């Protein structure tokens, strides 16, 4: 992407993406949206789409593009917001989110015309497919990377660890996973549902692990992504990014109930007001 991109410019894009998340989620009306996990992942997705990844909205199937896989597909609004801001999807299309006949389903559906690499959201599977895609790049001697956004709750899934073991065995150093550790999953806090030491687990299966203490701080997440992108460890890489569920909207932050629900007019107006005054 453009070399003139700065941390400040990514932060501005992140702010716009947060507004898009609220707009799309509000447009879905009673169908609701997964606000919490979209908002926690904004800085990660913005850093990837505006700085780290090589991609071209005018040529979505460009062979040398870096791949982005949103394995935690329920957080699709952060992905769609990035696709809008980078020009894959128009604003008119954005407002069709979850609508009858729309291509913007509540979990991503493969659509290369609009930059959606795979169908994901059945948890764990996107990450495992990303492993196959990284292997394919090795087979074809292509130099691009595969970036995969995974949820901390998603790491409950057994297939995450099947695929992680195979990633290490296959030396997929072109695969970079980012765990959006927002600490909240559907039914509660992750420490109450399944309290595990993610750092130890990823290390145990042979991955290079980097912890980002402030995953909603653009400078921090960007630094980690660039470090893993350039790592010569020969291992697959995982960034465990500590984030805040619902980041940026006070009443959604760290909230279990705002994992997914409809947004009413009053709450919408407050969310917009908070984001505009941030």
């Amino acid at each position, binding site marked *: 992407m453009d070399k003139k991109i700065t941390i400040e410019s990514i932060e501005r894009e992140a702010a716009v993406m947060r507004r898009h998340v609220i707009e799309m989620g509000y447009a879905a009306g009673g169908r609701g949206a997964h606000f919490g996990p979209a908002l926690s992942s904004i800085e990660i997705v913005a850093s990837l789409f505006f700085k780290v990844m090589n991609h071209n909205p005018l040529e979505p199937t460009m062979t040398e593009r870096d791949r982005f896989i949103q394995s935690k597909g329920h957080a699709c609004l952060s992905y769609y917001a990035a696709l809008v801001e980078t020009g894959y999807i128009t604003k008119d299309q954005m407002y069709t989110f979850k609508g009858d006949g729309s291509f913007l389903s509540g979990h991503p559906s493969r659509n290369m015309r609009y930059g959606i690499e795979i169908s994901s959201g059945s948890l764990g599977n996107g990450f495992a*497919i990303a492993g196959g895609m990284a292997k*394919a790049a090795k087979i074809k001697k292509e130099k691009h990377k595969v970036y995969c956004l995974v949820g901390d709750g998603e790491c409950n899934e057994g297939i995450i660890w099947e695929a992680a073991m*195979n990633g290490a065995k296959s030396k997929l150093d072109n695969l970079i996973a980012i765990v959006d550790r927002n600490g909240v999953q559907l039914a509660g806090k992750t420490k109450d549902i399944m309290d595990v030491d993610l750092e130890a687990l990823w290390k145990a299966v042979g991955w290079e692990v980097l912890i980002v203490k402030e995953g909603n701080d653009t400078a921090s997440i960007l630094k980690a992504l660039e470090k893993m992108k350039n790592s010569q460890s020969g291992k697959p890489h995982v960034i465990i990014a500590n984030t805040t569920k619902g980041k940026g909207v006070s009443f959604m932050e760290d909230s279990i109930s705002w994992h997914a629900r409809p947004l009413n007019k009053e709450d919408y107006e407050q969310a917009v007001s908070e984001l505009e005054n941030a």
Partner: protein
Amino acid sequence: MRKVPIERLQEWSKLGHRTVLGETLVMLGADYPEMVTVTADLTPTARLTGFKEAYPDRFYDVGIAEQNMIDFTAGLAVEGIRPFAVGLAAIVPMRPAEQMRVALGYMNLNATVVGIEAGVRFGPLGNTHYAMDDIAVVRAIPNFTIVSPSDPLQVHKALYAAAEYDGPIYMRLTGGPGFPIMYPEDFDFQIGKAIEYRKGSEVAFISNGALLGEAVAAAEILQTKGISVRVIDMHTVKPLDTVMLDKVFSENKLIVTIEEHSPIGGLGGAVAEYKAGFSGTPKQVFASLGDKFQKLGDHAFLMKENGLTASGLAALAEENL
């Protein structure tokens, strides 16, 4: 037409479908540079050692992890590689059914999943290793094509057809050592196009997999009793060859579907579902493994127990005429 290895048929018949699979994958490796083989710790069992040695960079063992095997396969296919994923029929369509649905089916990828030792081929290993429901699981997934070849040469030709096919395939392999040769010479094989193996006017046997041999033998028994039997090799369960079925509906009096599978959701179920749309069609009876777990026993014992022998099939037809 590509020359087929007729000289291997006797050996393939003697050794069964695993050997046909292993040797054919090596041939495919030579003919299709983008083709790879994936497995989940089944290399010697599925006779993949030859492929592994011939193409070590195109052979991937993901460990005992069938769910990841399917998603890994999908990731390769998304990027234009042609994967053949090989597992036990008893395990593979059922355990990673969701991966087959969301990754291979929903994204409509060009990949072939091969299930070896389908039906009750594993005899003494017991019910955990029987695949009696694999077709049913895959049939419910949109976009999937299901092929159950009937003899050694057809296994070989079906694998070649799969390498050029658009969309995901589940290839169900039956026929162990002593796999009857039904096609001693090269023949026209097309996925989705049934073969009228034997002409006949009264009964229609519609079979797939290695039971074609028993079906033909049963037809011969009935012939001696003056009953004319047509035998259809319905090697593709999905999509069904409805042109062939329409002929059967209008020309035969009794349909016997024959499969080493549950009567629910397999070939018999598929034929019945299609037949339900028409009035005045022939009665259908199901020769199958039944809706039950099996007794323990070797393959021949279980076939006899379920009436899946020439005499059993002949008797079933005669009772229902």
